C-alpha cells in the first residue's frame, strides 16, 4: 500500500444498498479533511456506487480491491 494509511475502518459487510453509501457519507462528514477511511463491503453494487460517490462528492477513492467476496476501498475526505 503506497502512501495512504486508513485512519478508521467502516465495516459494511453484510449490508446492502443504500447503507454502505449512507454510512460512508456520515463517516466522511465526521472525519477531518485528509482522513482516510477503509470501507469493507460485500454488496457488489458498492463498486459502482463508490465510483459515483467519488464523482459526485469529490472525495477520493484511493484504492479498491476485492478478496474472497469482500470489497475494500480506501476513501479520503478531500475538503
Amino acid at each position, binding site marked *: 500500500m503506497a502512501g495512504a494509511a486508513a485512519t478508521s475502518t467502516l465495516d459494511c459487510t453484510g449490508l446492502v444498498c*443504500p447503507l454502505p*453509501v*449512507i454510512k460512508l457519507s456520515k463517516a466522511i462528514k465526521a472525519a477531518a479533511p485528509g482522513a482516510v477511511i477503509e470501507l469493507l463491503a460485500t454488496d457488489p453494487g458498492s463498486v459502482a*456506487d463508490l465510483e459515483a*460517490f467519488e464523482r459526485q*462528492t469529490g472525495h477520493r477513492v484511493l484504492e479498491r480491491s476485492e478478496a474472497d467476496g469482500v470489497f475494500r476501498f480506501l476513501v479520503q475526505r478531500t475538503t
Partner: protein
Amino acid sequence: MDDDVKRILYVQTSGTESPERSATVFFLAAAGAAMDIEVGIYFTQTGPTLLQRGVSETLRVKKGGATLGHFMDQARDVGVRFYVCQPSLDLTDLKMADLVEGVEMIGGAAFNDMALDADRVICF
C-alpha cells in the same frame, strides 16, 4: 440558491395499498442525499398515505424484512425532505396533523418550480 448543488426531485405516487412499490424511492433518495445531492420526495396520488403517523412502521416491503418506516427514517436522517400538496391529502382524506413531523406542504406552482430547478425529476 446555490447553483453548484445538484438536485433530484422524486415523485412517489403509490402508498399503503402497495408497500412493494413504495420502498425504492426511499433507498434511492437516501443514496442521493448521502452523496451530497439535495433530494426531495413529493408524495402525490396515494403517496401521502405512507406519511400517516404510526402507519409506515406497520408496513413491510417483504416478509421478514425491515419496515417501510425504517427506510423512511433512514432517508430523512441523511437529509431527504418530504413534500405533499393539499389536493393529494384531500384525495386520501388526510390532514397535515395526521402526518409524521416535518412534512412540508407545497402547491402545484411550487412543485413545478422545484421540478424546473431540479437536475432530474424521477417518478415512481
